[in-house]
């Protein structure tokens, strides 16, 4: 363990980048040098070799999911695994293309290739989000935890209600409605945090969509905008002085709450982005494994 933070890209001085590069270069050299009479394809000895390498790589890339969940025992750091996963996974594009000799068609083989590319490109998105969103998330949070922010929203709501109660039943109703319309709190939060990620992808996709919906609601929440407008109206219409003071406070509270709610919504969104791509990446990688088996079997069948 070294005394520094390294990202997956520069793990161990980007060791796996060099491994992947060497593998790619070797494949290219072999491909150019090989030049069979029939034109390069999967059926030549080099085609078989590259195909075997690619298939083994895919199986190994899948094993990342197993490693991620075996917490005890040796086997290196997960960071090392992921670094290798990313670089070797990327080199797979080239190896697979060289394996098929750039021959495509409307068949299982090409389907297999496309599936693989989708998995890989979703992986690219994952790496992008892993590099970008954590910092945004920290900045957005301003060192509060999400639970603390939700708690604060709850308190602000209570205070606002209590304040509104002393002003006017109409205002109370407006505030109450705006509180009921903020669908941030318990629901989404508990869905996302108490989510069982071993569960099928479905539940979480639903959660993530819900999260985005809430986000949309909270940023452009027409309700809370309306609340503030309604009160400004009320202010302008000249209620009595004590109430004016209370209303000013109420507006402060509500805008404060809106700011935090927006932050929570963004927080949920960032986290959702960092998770949602996995719901493409992982199921499709299982699909890929199935397609790969089909591909291999069919090749031998036609033989």
């Amino acid at each position, binding site marked *: *363990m070294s005394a*520094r933070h*390294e*990202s*997956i890209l520069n793990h161990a001085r980007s060791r796996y980048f060099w491994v992947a590069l060497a593998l790619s270069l070797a494949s290219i050299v072999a491909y150019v040098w090989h030049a069979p009479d029939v034109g390069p394809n999967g059926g030549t000895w080099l085609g078989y070799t590259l195909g075997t390498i690619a298939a083994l790589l895919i199986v190994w890339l899948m094993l990342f999911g197993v490693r991620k969940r075996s917490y005890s025992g040796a086997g290196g750091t997960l*960071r090392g695994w992921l670094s290798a996963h990313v670089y070797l996974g990327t080199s797979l594009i080239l190896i697979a293309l060289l394996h098929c000799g750039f021959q495509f068609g409307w068949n299982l083989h090409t389907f297999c290739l496309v599936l693989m590319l989708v998995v890989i490109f979703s992986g690219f998105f994952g790496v992008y989000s892993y590099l970008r969103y*954590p*910092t945004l998330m*920290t900045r957005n949070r301003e060192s509060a935890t999400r639970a603390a922010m939700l708690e604060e929203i709850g*308190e602000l709501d209570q205070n606002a209600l209590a304040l509104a109660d002393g002003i006017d039943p109409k205002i109370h109703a407006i505030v109450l409605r705006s509180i009921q319309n903020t669908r941030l709190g318990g629901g989404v939060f508990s869905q996302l945090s108490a989510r069982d990620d071993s569960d099928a992808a479905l539940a979480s996709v639903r959660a993530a969509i819900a999260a985005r919906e809430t986000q949309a609601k909270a940023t452009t929440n027409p309700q809370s905008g309306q609340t503030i407008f309604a009160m400004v109206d009320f202010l302008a219409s000249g209620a009595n002085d004590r109430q004016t003071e209370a209303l000013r406070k109420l507006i402060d509270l509500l805008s404060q709450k809106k700011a935090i709610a927006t932050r929570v919504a963004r927080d949920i969104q960032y986290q959702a982005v960092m998770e949602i791509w996995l719901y493409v990446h992982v199921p499709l990688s299982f699909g890929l494994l199935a397609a790969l088996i089909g591909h291999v079997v069919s090749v031998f069948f036609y033989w």
Partner: protein
Amino acid sequence: MTDRFRIAIVGSGPGGLSAAARAAERGESHVLLEAEPHLSNTIYRYQKGKFVMDEPGILPLRSPVPFKAGSRETILGAWDEAAARLKINVRHGHEVSAIAKRPDGLFELKCANGKVVEAQFVVLGIGLQGNIRKLGVPGEDLPFVQYQLDDPDEYEGETIVVVGAGDAAIENAIALAKQNNVVIVNRRDEFARAKKGNEAGILKAIEDGLIECYYNAGPERVDALSVGRKKGRMILATANGKAQILIDRVIARLGATAPRGFVEACGVEFPSKDPASVPAISPQYESNVKGLYIVGALGGYPLIKQAMNQGYEVIEYIRGEKVEPADEPLLKAKFAPMPGFRSVDEALARVQKNVRLLSHITPLQLREFMLDSDVRTPKSGETVFARNDYTNSFYSIVDGEVQVVVDAATDQRITLRRGEFFGEMGLISGRRRSATVIAGAGCVLVETPRRSMNRLINSVAAVKREIDQVFILRAIQSRFVPEADAAQLADVVASATLQKFAAGDVLFNEGEVGDCLHLVRVGSLTISRNIGGKEVVLSYVPAGNYVGEMALLGDSKRSATARASIATETVRLTGESFKKLVARMPVLKLRLQAEYRQRAAANLAMQALPSGGDVIQFLLSQGAGEATDILLIDESLCVRCDNCEKACAETHGGTSRLDREAGPTYASVHVPTSCRHCEHPHCMKDCPPDAIRRAPNGEVYIADNCIGCGNCERNCPYGVIHMASKPPKKPGLLSWLLLGLGPGPGEAPVDPKKKKEAKEKKAVKCDMCKDVGGGPACVRACPTGAAIRISPEEFPAYAQSRR
């Protein structure tokens, strides 16, 4: 009217109760005086349903009162039953407030309720819990004024005044505020006495209006009301005059008065001012006051079974019987491997005769010391401990000799012989062993764990003095001139002094004229320079290193400021004697210069990156200076997948010992709530069975003999210890993956027996996965490399790597 008895027993804890039971069984005239309306207040006050453990398991119980591990209720029930069956003469509500020996030799025990009891012998078994401090104002004993809170959820919709500003008061107030209207009364204008987290919590609750706070205020009176909706009212004296609060309940958490004052007033002497010291008592438990005996926790035996055995034995001793102490078989087993062993008494005498350090202590102290210690008889050539092991026990050489490898490169060795000791460096500095020790011929060693040794050092001044002297000599020798012998160093050692610094204290300032050198013995320092009007930390100096040599050798001005980053103790060498030493030993000068060049280069690198110092400053302000290994999360890499917590839970019975999210962040460096494996772990302080240990690699862990008392949870300033019960087994990964059996990775296992029976709860904390292999699971499981564990020595390099 005064009553007269032969034996008066004060306090009905396990010690006192067992003594009274034995006295009753033997038909002695006796009385058991207990302040509370029930027996054994300490155990009575345990949490409801607490599982009480009967450590140490190997010690046999010797008492007419039964005691087996079980729930608090079963044990208290069995004791009540035994007290009735044996017809113990117990008087409740008798808090003894003074014990005086009259000229006629009889003791006179005055009770707070006015009763007076006379007795020929007194057995004091009042434990260490002390007396709960009451409000001290009229109405303090009203039924709705309470001094303890078992279950905050029991109350709802009440107006409750919490009096106090410590952790207990704050925790109660916050817990009660969920369902009640809470007012907290603080005598001062801040909550600085509490842990950081609690302080922040209460200030926030006050700011949010959840809790109302009266600062600089104190209760003046509590009255019961017969009309109205509230049970009573409290009159407060505040800075702005009087205030009245209508209340349902008062919860006062004002701490307890340590029993020491009372005990001293009885004439019993304590060997030192240190709060950890216990009164010196004879092997028969008799104090310096003839006829006054001390048993149980007050005498330094903090476990129930020990207290009960002593209660039994003390009655036998008073009756003039000879009993073999219950721990005799344990000692016999300990001494058995010692060559030429015949009897325990003889072996004890041999230890005391051979080891001068132990000649300062009483026979009972020696017995206790040996009970905690182990006798080791390593073969010649065997390694006792290796350099860089992180053990902290202390060794005394009873026979034979050992060799200390002071310089591994040249295999230079020093021989220590019978009567000498070693291991004091690791014990005092809280750091890794500085040298390897190899057993010589006919070696018999006594290995003593850190806690017992510290207790001895703190209670016997002569022991402390002797160890300190040897420490200074060996520290100078090993750090500067391994080739010199004791005689050559005599004058440097003679002029050396020990100096203490509080966190933040300055040892010397940049620009001052230097006249001394400091060798850090406990704690650590930071070296900083004023750059552009701002203090920039350049390096971190852990225990075992020195500062201030350069001003003595070359330019006489200090080139930087040295500041204690935590409570620190140094060996201060005067400039004069050090210069003489350098003059006498030319190699030393070369050595110092070589080291200086390295330091200067490192400082220069830091100076080039002044913002790096801010990261160090931030970490030190989080108490990282006393850490040996701290978990840091880079929030610009952390994707919040919580795989670290899952990994921890998965490798540690379903509960994560780490809270990733909680904790401060600075410049994306996040310090999560997780154990730092402190140099001098606060959690070890008051652990009755001494269950918290340090493993050779430095991990602070909790052994199985934990009794779940929760002291460590309270003592850790970083809030990383929890009380948890043992989880049931989980199915393996494969059966979950393939068959969907049971809870998945990272999830808590379901407990079919949940809540049906009293389960033993024990303290759990991070053990750095010492038993898992491959390093801490949290770090290994982080997919993006956001989680790392580092030691403070690495802070400068770490700070440089982050720009």
